[in-house]
């Protein structure tokens, strides 16, 4: 079974230490740090549209955000629960398709459709979880691949519902009180808030007792069942939680593309999502966003250096896999740990000042 290296490097141990200590001041310090972090993120979000061009905002930033949201569902499954799922595009597609079908075929109000799509995510996750509850590791990967491909073929072949290969075009993102989400800035704010929300939510889940069970699933299935947890129920619930963010990603993707077709969930996208998460690193949920950004940048700008974009993407991906266990995030964290060690060697004083790690531990 795959076990991401959650050694000393990732801060989770530090977190546990803090919790064990139960020192009130540490907790309130954390709270403050969290608020500060949120504020920074808020400021960054507010500033982004000013800092980047319209094109970059839409095609790099917003794309990375929804791709990252979809990716975070996979990062959550792999990093927290050790479940490698290739069916996240299926969830993503279910939500996106459901919204498009309700609006374009049945004239359902957009917000009802959006709500339905957001519910469809966890439901689809639940179903996938139920189907795959007895599998784990590489078997699970294969089974979920089959599910992902099945949903793709369903979209392509079952025309009465899905309009076949052409799919749905001309979907207009909603307008809230005169703010048109088809425009870039509003869409960006919505995506960014959704991204922050998804990350916070998934983190809350990860820190809850359920999160503990997920880590048990990841690290030691036998012990988990010995502790009285049902591995099946844990698996199913993990899929449902992940389905939520994949569903949100699907909704945003349809707003972004204005369309959804089997091409949005075909095997190339399944692979792309896996690449996004692997490049970013599953050690933290934010890795998915980093990975999404890298992939989006490569797809948009790599052809300025080479005629063979795909080879470059593949090669970059291989190199990252070869040199780092946890993607780019892993490289970064390793480097930081090494830097810390170096500092420790030359003068313990400076390290002490850094002990609480407020920023890395929201």
């Amino acid at each position, binding site marked *: *079974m*795959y076990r991401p290296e959650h050694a000393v490097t990732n801060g989770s141990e530090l977190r546990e230490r803090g919790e064990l200590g139960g020192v009130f001041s540490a907790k309130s310090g954390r709270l403050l740090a969290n608020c500060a972090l949120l504020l920074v993120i808020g400021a960054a979000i507010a500033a982004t549209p000013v800092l980047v061009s319209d094109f970059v905002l839409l095609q790099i930033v917003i794309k990375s955000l929804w791709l990252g949201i979809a990716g975070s569902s996979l990062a959550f499954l*792999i990093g927290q629960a050790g479940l*490698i799922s290739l069916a996240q595009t299926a969830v993503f597609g279910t939500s996106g398709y459901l919204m498009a079908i309700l609006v374009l075929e049945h004239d359902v109000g957009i917000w009802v459709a959006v709500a339905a799509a957001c519910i469809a995510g966890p439901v689809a996750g639940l179903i996938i979880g139920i*189907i*795959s509850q*007895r*599998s*784990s*590791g*590489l*078997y699970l*990967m*294969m*089974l979920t*691949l*089959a*599910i992902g*491909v*099945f949903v793709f*073929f*369903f979209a392509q*072949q*079952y025309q009465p519902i899905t309009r076949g290969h052409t799919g749905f075009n001309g979907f207009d993102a909603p307008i809230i009180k005169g703010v048109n989400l088809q425009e870039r800035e509003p869409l960006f704010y919505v995506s960014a808030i959704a991204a922050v929300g998804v990350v916070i939510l998934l983190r809350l889940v990860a820190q809850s007792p359920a999160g503990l069970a997920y880590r048990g699933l990841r690290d030691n299935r036998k012990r988990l069942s010995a502790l009285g947890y049902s591995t099946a129920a844990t698996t199913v619930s993990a899929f449902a939680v992940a389905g939520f963010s994949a569903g949100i990603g699907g909704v945003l993707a349809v707003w972004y593309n204005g369309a959804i077709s089997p091409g949005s969930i075909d*095997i190339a996208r399944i*692979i792309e999502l*896996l*690449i996004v998460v*692997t490049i970013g690193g599953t050690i933290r949920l934010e890795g998915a966003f980093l990975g999404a950004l890298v992939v989006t940048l490569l797809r948009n700008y790599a052809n300025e250096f080479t*005629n*063979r*974009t*795909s*080879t470059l*993407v*593949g*090669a970059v*991906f*291989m190199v990252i*896999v*070869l040199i780092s*266990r946890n993607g780019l995030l892993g490289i970064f964290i390793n480097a930081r740990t090494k830097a810390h060690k170096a500092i420790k060697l030359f003068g313990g004083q400076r390290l002490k000042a850094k002990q609480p790690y407020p920023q890395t531990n929201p």
Partner: protein
Amino acid sequence: MARRLLGVAVAVLLAYYAVSKSVEIGDRSLLVLLNGLTAAGLYFLMASGFTLVFGLARVTNLAHGGIYLLGGYGALSVQRTTGNWFLAVMLGALFAAGVSLVLYLLLRLLKGDDLRETMLTLGATIVIADQTLATWGGIPTDLAPPSFLTGSIHLPGSPLLYPKFRLAVVALAVLAGLLLWVLLYKTRLGMLIRAGVDDADMVSVLGIRVPLVLASVFMLAGALAGIAGAAGGTYLSLAQGEDNRILLASLIVVIAGGLGSLRGAGAAAIIVGLVEAFAQTHHPVLSVLITFGSLIAILVLRPQGLIKGATHVQA
């Protein structure tokens, strides 16, 4: 007991359905059967190597489809220069084996981390696909079969034709199966492979160079995929995207059969081939859904595949 009864009942219903459908199309059902077997032959060539590599090295080699394509294209280049199909297949297989070996050497750097190994093969697929596009272009093409396998024969007792080469593919798969059996059960390398699938650490403790065994299995799998590529490139065609199609098909077979099990791969190849041919004949539009749907059904009922692999595949 109840579950078994239910299973039997479902099987009887399915058999009745299949038979009645076959009666409906008369002597064409033989055609469907043969089509299924041909597909099964190709799938087996792919799946056997895949499953061996998985069993021994615990690598889900997603580049297996890419290697199929490379083998086929390699053979194509040889055939274009020499005109000899057999030489083309041999060199194509050799080429594929070589690529597979390179892949193994890369994988060694990861020291047995399942997920990263899988990811590395995924990256390799992307690179291979793009490089075949760069080298051989994007227009579909094919190999010419050897002259004595060109054309078709009449099926006994019916006016229907069946291409000779497709029958040869079935024969090739059977031959490959036999050779694999001999290799695995009658040679020292085969014993080492089986032992390695059971417990690679113990083999190395005995003083055996497991990496050599692994390398030979990778090359064997590559060669099988290369042969499949040349065969598929002859009776189907070589094109961009074929790598993913064939990879998906062989994945279905391998999973349905039980990862790591050669016998399972054989049985599942036949089942998948037949189900596919049957579904395509009777429910063309939904055929892909039926193939994948039955795979999901199999995996839900038997998470370890039809035949439990020789290994503890839980990991």
